[in-house]
């Protein structure tokens, strides 16, 4: 089957539109009849995982409803899955029966409703935001939702993708639609080129540092400019992934040849490939289209970034110092002081050289092949420092296989790091991988919230390069000195 050409995408005479407008309009089932009434938006792809779906399926059953389009849904197991090598499903049962219950429930629900499930042991299993793109399920122009805030990741392909709550998961299961108020648009334009040692992760941490963690609230961000065009798809996913950390509903990057080359030949890529590409080429913001807001950054000024506090907006260059009280609005000081306290950092202090307990490379932000390659490049011929525990957790079974084909696992193991099975792992510490109270981690994840990686644990967010450099040094380190 092939979608019909869409007049709204092809009509050259129409007023200039943003990429967001084009996707939004194409998915409107009903326009709001009066102001304040939400639109009904059609959902092309619904991704599911074990943590936020059980209540949604239960509600469906309670009402005696069926899943409207099982062929537009896909489920995976990722959040509470074990990552220790050789520990299978039965191992998990022993470790945590409640996590196992969730996994069983997902399996029952998917079987009952005919939804494809990539369960533990399936070679396609992995973190939901890693497998969607790598299987070619994520495609330009789609609307994609999941009961998970990092659904924004899929926006890297020019898809309108956002996280929803479990009630909305029920809505999509039953009707394939969502009630939505139209968000506003924000263009984040990044000029110039990233310098050596600065990556997509450093770029998005800089952007969030500039917008603040609520600067994107109510908005869909479109990332534009040369520095964005220059990123490969995995870098673009890292950027869009953390749009939610700027408070945005979604992040978007217009599809281009890089996007098409990535998708070509993937399992679920459209069979009518040429027609698909032709229709995707219309997915860009027209010259003259207006965003509600716009900010501009220079990529060449961006250094490797780390966070010093308890949210992703509390960041600084790795060589910088923790900001002083005078650099904050007085009204936010109680929040800032709480963060200094929790992280045991002093204003004005450098973090370079601070001893690290754990280094974690993984999560839907930075667990793809290029992330693992970056970490391996730094670890090659070096050793993880004594006293540091380093975990490398691939985002999916496919990433794990590709990494092993390239021998990356041997680099990690030789350096003294642990090479794990795919999953979310220590990103949210639901599966048994967690920090002990008081431990400090340099982590390639997306959230340095209090206790996120284990109650009492402290997290510094960084790129895979900075994480690997810190593992080797045994303390927070600047990767540029090791490249």
């Amino acid at each position: 089957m092939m979608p019909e050409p869409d007049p709204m995408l092809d009509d050259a005479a129409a007023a200039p539109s943003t990429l967001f407008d084009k996707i939004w309009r194409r998915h409107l089932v009903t326009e709001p009849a009066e102001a304040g009434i939400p639109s009904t938006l059609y959902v092309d792809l619904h991704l599911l995982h074990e943590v936020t779906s059980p209540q949604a399926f239960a509600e469906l059953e309670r009402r005696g409803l069926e899943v409207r389009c099982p062929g537009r849904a896909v489920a995976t197991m990722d959040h509470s899955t074990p990552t220790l090598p050789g520990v299978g499903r039965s191992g998990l049962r022993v470790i945590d029966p409640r996590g196992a219950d969730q996994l069983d429930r997902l399996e029952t629900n998917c079987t009952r409703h005919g939804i494809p499930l990539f369960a533990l042991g399936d070679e396609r299993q992995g973190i939901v935001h890693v497998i969607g793109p790598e299987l070619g399920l994520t495609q330009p122009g789609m609307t994609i939702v999941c009961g998970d805030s990092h659904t924004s990741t899929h926006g890297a392909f020019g898809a309108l993708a956002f996280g929803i709550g479990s009630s909305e998961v029920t809505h999509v299961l039953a009707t394939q639609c969502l009630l939505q108020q139209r968000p506003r648009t924000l263009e984040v334009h990044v000029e110039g080129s990233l310098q050596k040692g600065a990556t997509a992760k450093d770029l998005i941490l800089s952007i969030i540092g500039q917008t603040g963690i609520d600067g994107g609230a109510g908005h869909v961000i479109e990332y534009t400019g040369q520095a964005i065009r220059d990123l490969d798809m995995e870098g673009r996913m890292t950027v869009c992934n953390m749009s939610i950390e700027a408070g945005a509903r979604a992040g978007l990057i217009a599809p281009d040849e890089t996007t098409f080359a990535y998708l070509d030949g993937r399992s679920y890529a459209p069979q009518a490939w040429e027609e698909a590409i032709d229709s995707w080429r219309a997915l860009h913001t027209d010259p003259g289209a207006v965003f509600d807001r716009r900010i501009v950054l220079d990529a060449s000024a961006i250094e490797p970034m780390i966070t010093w506090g308890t949210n992703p907006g509390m960041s600084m260059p790795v060589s910088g110092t923790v900001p002083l009280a005078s650099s904050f609005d007085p009204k936010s000081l109680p929040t800032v002081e709480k963060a200094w306290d929790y992280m045991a950092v002093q204003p004005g202090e450098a973090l370079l050289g601070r001893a690290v307990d754990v280094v974690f490379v993984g999560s839907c932000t930075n667990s793809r092949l290029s992330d693992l390659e970056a970490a391996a490049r730094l670890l090659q011929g070096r050793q993880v420092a004594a006293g540091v525990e380093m975990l490398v957790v691939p985002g999916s079974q496919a990433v794990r296989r590709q990494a092993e084909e390239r021998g990356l696992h041997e680099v990690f193991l030789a350096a003294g790091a642990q090479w794990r099975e795919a999953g979310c792992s220590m990103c949210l510490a639901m599966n048994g991988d967690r920090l002990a109270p008081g431990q400090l981690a340099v982590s390639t994840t997306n959230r340095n919230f209090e206790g996120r990686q284990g109650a009492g644990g402290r997290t510094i967010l960084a790129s895979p390069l900075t994480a690997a450099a810190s593992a080797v040094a045994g303390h927070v380190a600047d990767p540029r000195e090791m490249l």
Partner: protein
Amino acid sequence: MSEKTVMAPRFQSLRSRVVPLLIDDVDTDQIIPADYLKVIGREGLADGLFAEWRRDPECVLHREVFRGARVLLAGENFGCGSSREHAPWALLDYGFRAVLSPSFADIFRINALRNGLLTVAIERPLQRQLVELVEQDPESEIAIDLETSTLTLPDGVKIRFDIDPFARRCLLEGIDQLGYLLRQDSQIAEYESHHPPWTDTRQPEVEAS
């Protein structure tokens, strides 16, 4: 099961003491840590509410005077981070029915309103005024009325607040939002007839090249 048997959440009005928790950017990992998400139901989540912060005996939630209070006075950007609907479920299970804040994170606000937890956006000066009020007399009560979208201070002063008009209507009239969507079945079918998918997730896959 017919739609009539579905109990949609409702909200009319309430009067309550106010618990001040004035940290900005409270994320949903604080509201309910991940350890408490290993459930398949939505009941009984009160234990997880601010679980880490409640380990501190000084935590405001332990103050006797606030026992049974149904209004939380929060800092800016309340509910940021994870989309877990367990956050409003936990707040409701604990007994809260409304959160007042200068701003809410988008997904949290949507999740809260869908469950009948009222998110009331207030200006910063009013937030300060309420803090002073509670400091002077923690037993002060405020009233919230959704019909008129007003908040009434103990001295009788009324302040109007903005709220998503659709959420307001649903909460006042007990409209079930899924039922509302299900009634659009013919429009959805009409839309689908023009927009077949590129990809069926259940179809046999083409070999990756």
